[in-house]
């Protein structure tokens, strides 16, 4: 089941006269994994919200699977930075919300895919941050989406949990074949996961770099560090005056 193609055509977005996105053009191929990187406030999250139709663009259009989108598409799922589980529903009930027709088998399969089928009766409040995010991932996957939008989903997790989650996301993406757009400010995470890294600065795409490494990738590999450096240098030379804000 290949994912959907995403086309962004001349997207602009302003909040109260302040331009956040200025003319974004980007095509994400079916099944491709694209990482959007950039410093906080550069508009990368806004762009993701526009793709999901949570936010309307001020100008331009979003085309998913050759159809211009105007409303939230059931084939597009969004993973937020916070897990956003319903605290009054247990793990199983939370994941079931994402399954088509509230199908129990699909729910169970999704829970198994993230390795939490033994926690199905737990309340979200009893889970760790990483477990909560895995439940959120299962909820998104239960609907077998064609597009997965991830808005810094690992930003609040500790380093070890992060590595495990990156591997899990990579595996699930490889297995299910959805198109993924992953927002992060962590360049190394972007290089580890993405087929292509897109750098957004001041509302414009300033770098569109294919990562030609084979998977699974090793962050200590010299080619890996090559791509990492390439992107980082681009960020730093472009914005030497406030490079200190980057979290590497």
């Amino acid at each position, binding site marked *: 089941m290949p994912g959907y193609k995403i086309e962004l055509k001349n997207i602009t977005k302003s909040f109260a006269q302040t331009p956040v996105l200025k003319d974004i053009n980007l095509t994400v191929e079916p099944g491709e994994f694209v990482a959007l990187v950039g410093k906080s406030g550069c508009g990368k999250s806004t762009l993701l919200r526009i793709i999901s139709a*949570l936010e309307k663009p001020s100008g331009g259009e979003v085309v998913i699977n050759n159809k211009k989108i105007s409303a939230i598409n059931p084939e597009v799922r969004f993973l*937020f930075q916070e897990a*956003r589980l*319903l*605290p*009054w*529903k*247990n793990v199983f009930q939370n994941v079931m*919300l994402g399954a088509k027709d509230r199908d129990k088998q699909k729910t169970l399969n999704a829970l198994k895919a993230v390795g939490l089928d033994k926690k199905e009766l737990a309340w979200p*409040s009893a889970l760790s941050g990483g477990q909560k995010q895995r439940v959120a991932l299962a909820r998104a996957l239960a609907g077998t989406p064609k597009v997965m939008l991830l808005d810094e989903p690992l930003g609040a997790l500790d380093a070890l949990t992060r590595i495990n989650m990156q591997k899990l996301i990579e595996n699930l993406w490889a297995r299910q074949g959805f198109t993924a757009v992953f927002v992060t400010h962590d360049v190394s995470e972007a290089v580890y996961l993405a087929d292509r890294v897109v750098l957004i600065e001041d509302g414009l795409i300033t770098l569109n770099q294919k990562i030609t490494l084979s998977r699974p990738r090793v962050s200590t590999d010299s080619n890996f560090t090559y791509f990492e450096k390439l992107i980082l240098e681009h960020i730093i030379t472009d914005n030497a005056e406030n490079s200190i804000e980057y979290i590497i």
Partner: protein
Amino acid sequence: MSYLTNPSMTPSKNLKNTKSNKTIKLLKNKLADSLMAWSIPIVFVILWFYLTDGKISTRLFPTPFELVHTTIRLIQDGTLLVNLQISSIRALLGLLVGGSIGFILGITTGQFKLAEKILNTPIQMIRNVPHLAMLPVVLIWFGIGESSKLVLISLGTFFPIYLNTFHGIRSIDKSLIEMGKIYGFSAFEMFKNIILPGATSSIMIGVRQSLGRMWLTLIVAETIAAKSGIGYMATNARELMMMDVIVLSLIIYALLGSISDFIAVAIEKYLLRWNPNYQEE
């Protein structure tokens, strides 16, 4: 020295000992807690026995034996149960009507800005009139029959549930609603899965406040204008100087209040069992 010869036995034995020690400690703590909680009521009962034993006139306060005797007499001739039943039905019916209206209006104004604009100001204006001040009006309009009590109790229980439902809905985490949108929830699913459960803890605060106002209103209404019920029983007893019946009525009110609050707390605990603040260790 046995732990040297058989090291595998000793730790488990120690573990067992500390475990039973812990249980005993826990029981002791519980006993101490309940002793503390009941110490003042126990002192009062002792004082009661002492004072009514010739120190004060039993016309002003009945002896414990008189009270027990009266209770048994009123249970046997059926007066107590009939009045208790009438009072409870009045109270619950009033709560049901007032609470339902408050709940529905709270949900409406909580979810729809237009409804809030239209309804909130008049509701707040009415709220500032103490509902018991409406008693003369209600009596003239509805007489001293059941409907006047129903109206008064409904008025009393309406506001806490309305306000807390409104507030509960307004303070729902917007990010969860956004999540619901992404998952394509219909308006009903949004209400059932996110809005209602999210407002539950606030609504239950309103229910508990309403329960207090429910009994208060009932007592006032039955004392001033009624021909039956616990309040009537007490008022009637005052005319005949039957202190035992009056005290019994007070005790029944205290019991009814405690029981209803106990039930509300149990319901609250069940509905909010997902919340770590309501989970017992």
